[in-house]
C-alpha cells in the first residue's frame, strides 16, 4: 500500500486532532469521575410538547412531565388551498449545549410547503422556545389528506 505525501500530511493533522479530541473527552470523564465537579458531556437534548399549545403559551410554565421525545404526533387543522395555517409546539433543551434548531419536513405533496420562524434559532441549555410551524398550500395543491414526519434537531 502506498500513501502519497499529501495524504500523509493530512493523516498527521487528523491524528493530532483526534488525539486532542480524545484527550478532551478523557479529561471531562476523568474530572467527572474524580468528583471535583458535575461536568457532563456538552450535548443538547430536545424534548417537545405538542398538545394544546397556542401562540400565547408560556413553554417554561408547562410541567416537565408534559415534554417528551417519543411518540409525538399532530393532526393539523384542515388547510384551504391558497392559504397558510400555523400550529405551535414547545421545545425544551435539557442538554448542556446550545442547539441550533433545524426543522426538516419529510416529503411534502406538490404545492405544499413548510416553514418555521424559529429555523436556525439557538436554544440554550435548559432553554424553552415556542415554535410556530407554518404550513402553506398553493391554490393548485391537491385537496386530500397526507402525512409526513417533521424532524427537529
Amino acid at each position, binding site marked *: 500500500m502506498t500513501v502519497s505525501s499529501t495524504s500523509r500530511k*493530512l493523516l498527521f493533522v487528523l491524528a493530532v486532532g483526534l488525539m486532542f479530541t480524545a484527550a478532551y473527552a478523557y479529561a471531562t470523564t476523568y474530572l467527572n469521575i474524580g468528583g471535583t465537579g458535575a461536568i457532563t458531556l456538552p450535548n443538547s437534548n430536545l*424534548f417537545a410538547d405538542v398538545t394544546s399549545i397556542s401562540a400565547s403559551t408560556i413553554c417554561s410554565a408547562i410541567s416537565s412531565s408534559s415534554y417528551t421525545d417519543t411518540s*409525538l404526533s399532530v393532526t393539523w387543522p384542515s388547510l384551504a388551498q391558497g392559504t397558510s395555517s400555523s400550529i405551535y409546539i414547545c421545545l425544551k433543551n435539557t442538554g448542556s449545549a446550545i442547539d441550533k434548531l433545524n426543522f426538516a419536513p419529510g416529503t411534502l405533496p406538490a404545492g405544499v410547503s413548510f416553514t418555521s420562524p424559529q429555523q436556525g434559532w439557538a436554544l440554550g441549555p435548559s432553554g424553552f422556545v415556542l415554535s410556530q410551524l407554518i404550513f402553506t398550500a398553493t391554490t393548485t395543491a391537491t385537496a386530500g389528506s397526507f402525512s409526513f414526519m*417533521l424532524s427537529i*434537531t
Partner: protein
Amino acid sequence: MSKPLLILLAVLFLTVSGVVGETQLSIGIIASIISPPTYIVTILMENHPLNVTLNPNGVIGNPNASYITFLARNASLAENYVAVTNLNSLPNYVALTGGNKSLVPNNCLPSLCPINEPNIADRIEKSGRNWKAYMEDLLPGQPCTYSGSGSGHYDVFHNPFVYYADVQDNVTRCSSHVVPANSGSSGPPDDLFINDLNNLTTASNFMWLTPNNCDDMHGGNGCSSSIMTFADNYTRQLVPKILSSLVFKTGKAALFIVWDEPTYCSVACQIPAIWIGPTIKQHYLSNKPYDHYSYLSTLESLWALPTLTVNDALASSMIEFFQ
C-alpha cells in the same frame, strides 16, 4: 482517498459526534387540504339557545323546530358555539362582522354609533371577492341609516353593515351592497335573494341574509305567538331553495345558519351554529369551543383574509366542518 485515511476520518467523526451529539425529535404530522368554497351564505337567526337539554327554549331537538333539527343532524353542528354578549343583538352582529363587540355600546342607532373600523366586507372586497347583505322587509331607496320597520319587521339592530362608516357614508356602496331580500310587502319568499343565488353573474361570494323579526325567531308585535314554529317553517321553505340554487349546484358553496345570542339563559349557553352545503361534512358534530369571532376566523382562513382584531386573530377557525 486511501483506506487508512478513510478509517481515521470515520473514527474522528464518531469521536466528535459522541462529544457534541444531539437528539433528533420526530413528529408525525397528519394534514389535509381542502378546496375552499367560492360562495359563503350566512343567515342570522335570533335569541334562542342550542338545544332542549340546555333549556326548554332550545332549538335543536325541540319539536317546534323539527326542520332546523333535521338540518343540524344531517349537516354539521357546532355544539359548543357561544355568543359574545347577551340581551343586546347589535354587539353580537358587530362581533360577527367587525371582530369586536365593543365597537358599539349596545343597541344604538347607526347615525349615533358609526364605526370607524375595518370590517369583513372591506376584507372581502380587498381580496377581489364581492359581497351583499340582504335585509328582509327593507324598503328600496331608504337612506342607509334608516331605522324604521321597513315594509314589515325590518330591524336595523340586525343590520351591522350600515354601522360601518365606510358603508354608511358612501351612499353608492351602501345602496348597492345592503339590499332588500324580498320584493313583497313582508317576509318570504325572499325572491331577490334567491334570484341572485340562481345567477352566477349576480351572486356574490359573500351573501348575508337577515330575516325579519318574525322569520328570524326573534318575535314581537305582529309576529306569531308560536315564534319557534313560525321561524322553523320559514327555514323549511327557504333553505331548500338555497341548497338547490345554481350557486350551490357549483359544488363550491357553504351555508352558515347561526343564532345571535341565547337570551333565555346566560351568555355561556351555547347557541345553534349549523354549516350546510356541498363543501361541508355531513352528520358531523364538534364539541370544540367556538364563538362569533370564530366565524370571522373561518372566513379569514378559507379566503386568506387579513384578520380584523385580536379577537378573530386568536379565535379558532371552524374549518374542521369543511371537506
